[in-house]
């Protein structure tokens, strides 16, 4: 094998005369690729935060105003918990799920369609690094949006904070699941239309029908059973347990379902990235 310099070192004679003498030499680190992609993904949504953060917070607040106004005096879900207070964790989690998904999928599909995905395909980024950076950035956006929704809705009804560890656990795991699903959809989709279809016909109904606005105990038996097949139900139910200490199913069951969902989604996404499915044809 031929000997050659490390890529962080110049080849042959450098442009020494042109390089600022006081300038420090570039540093190479194995983790920098991942960190940079994560930073870029986070910066990407932050630069358009009016659309990616403020808008979903406003939407969640509108849901709260309308549903709470209409149903506050008519619906009683848990003993000692007002409907508005019940609604808040559901809205927070729904916003987190939708935004975690949107972050990964919109970034990838935009990059694919505009062609700039080549900038992450040419460097020596591994499938693990790409996966981790996209999912972590999606989680950050989800947490920022979730915190924002919580901050503007708690003024209407102060929820209990029965088990903060469960709140954090379900917030992190659920946004990771949705960031991963967004990644899968982004790799698979070839046009915006397919992404919109996935978002509007799968993600949106699944999040709406997962118990955001009601307890599944208020549903007929068939729909109760159907809800148990919806992983999003467990995300919201477990998250809500953290606030009220009561839920439709045990938080441990919810944790198990969410963990298995995350593992399946993560394994699928990593497999797609490793094989270069639709990215490296």
């Amino acid at each position: 094998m031929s000997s050659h310099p490390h890529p962080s070192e110049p080849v042959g004679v450098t442009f020494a005369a042109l390089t600022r003498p006081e300038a420090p030499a570039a540093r190479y680190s194995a983790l920098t690729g991942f960190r940079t992609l994560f930073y870029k993904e986070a910066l990407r949504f932050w630069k358009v935060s009016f659309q990616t953060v403020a808008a979903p917070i406003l939407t969640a607040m509108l849901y709260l105003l309308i549903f709470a106004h209409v149903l506050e005096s008519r619906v009683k879900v848990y003993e000692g918990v007002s409907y508005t207070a019940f609604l808040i964790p559901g809205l927070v989690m729904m916003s987190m799920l939708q935004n975690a998904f949107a972050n990964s999928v919109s970034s990838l599909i935009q990059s694919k369609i505009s062609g700039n995905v080549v900038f992450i395909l040419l460097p020596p980024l591994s499938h693990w690094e790409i996966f981790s950076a996209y999912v972590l950035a999606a989680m950050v956006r989800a947490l920022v949006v979730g915190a924002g929704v919580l901050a503007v809705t708690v003024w209407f009804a102060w929820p209990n904070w029965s088990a903060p560890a469960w709140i954090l656990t379900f917030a992190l795991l659920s946004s990771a699941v949705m960031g991963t699903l967004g990644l899968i959809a982004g790799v698979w989709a070839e046009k915006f239309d397919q992404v919109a279809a996935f978002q509007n016909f799968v993600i949106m109904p699944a999040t709406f029908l997962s118990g955001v606005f009601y307890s599944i105990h208020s549903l007929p038996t068939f729909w109760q059973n159907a809800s148990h097949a919806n992983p999003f139900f467990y995300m919201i139910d477990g998250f809500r347990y953290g606030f009220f200490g009561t839920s439709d199913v045990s938080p441990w069951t919810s944790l198990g379902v969410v963990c298995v969902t995350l593992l399946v989604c993560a394994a699928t996404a990593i497999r797609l990235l490793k094989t270069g499915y639709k990215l490296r044809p």
Partner: protein
Amino acid sequence: MSAAIRIQNVRKRYGALEALAGVSLEIGEGEFFGLLGPNGAGKTTLISIIAGITRADSGSVAVLGHDVITDYRMSRKLLGVVPQELVFDPFFTVRETLRIQSGYFGLTRNDAWIDEVMFHLDLTNKANVNMRALSGGMKRRVLVAQALVHKPPVIVLDEPTAGVDVELRQTLWKFIRRLNQEGHTVVLTTHYLEEAEALCQRIGMLKAGRVVALDSTAALLARISGRQLLLTFREGHLPADLEAYALDPEGAARARKVTLRLHEMANLEMILARCRTSGAVIEDVELQGADLEDVFVQIMQGASA
């Protein structure tokens, strides 16, 4: 000379289309290599396989000894690619774009080199301008800068001067030549054959996914023994029996200026003598050597025969 890029029997098929039909090629370290071919010849597919953004159906590619599939991290670190498509990320400024690209290659505190690359590509005063606000030529410069941001020993430029002004071409070639002189291997695809002729030490020609010529530029030019003879007549015209020598035989016998292809220098005296005996008076004679375009046309015609 060891291989900067070693391509062994690479095949790639897109459905019924055979984009690469068993390409084997070696590009030496420090070479300035030209990859030429008509549209659809497979140049970009080959470059995409070298860069790891397309996977070959069979065969292997290695960059400085590192396989692009099994040792992709090292091979990609050693490679800088300027893609053909004018792509950019609309969220960032030029400096942010270059810092991010640098980071993808594992580099931090790389601003000294980023500044230098921007200086050489006349991008310094655009450093803080958003990519969306740049002209096409400026975006092309940023693409080149992105490919060089990690100082790759092997640089691949896929039609980097397509649709850009003369100023950028000159700026770019000056910089790339300098990098080549410092030891970087450069692989260039271009439709501007005069660029390839002026810059490349060796040239490979692809047609329909096959290598149809691979030699030093000088040797390729020497393959064309034919030169061109430009005759300007003061009186009379080209004799009809010499029309076969004309580049454009139609109307050659009536034209005042005519260009003839000289397959052998020995024909020169015969042509001039024949013109004299036909009563024509020649005002001016000009003899031109072959250029790469002639070689290209001849090889492509030969390959299709």
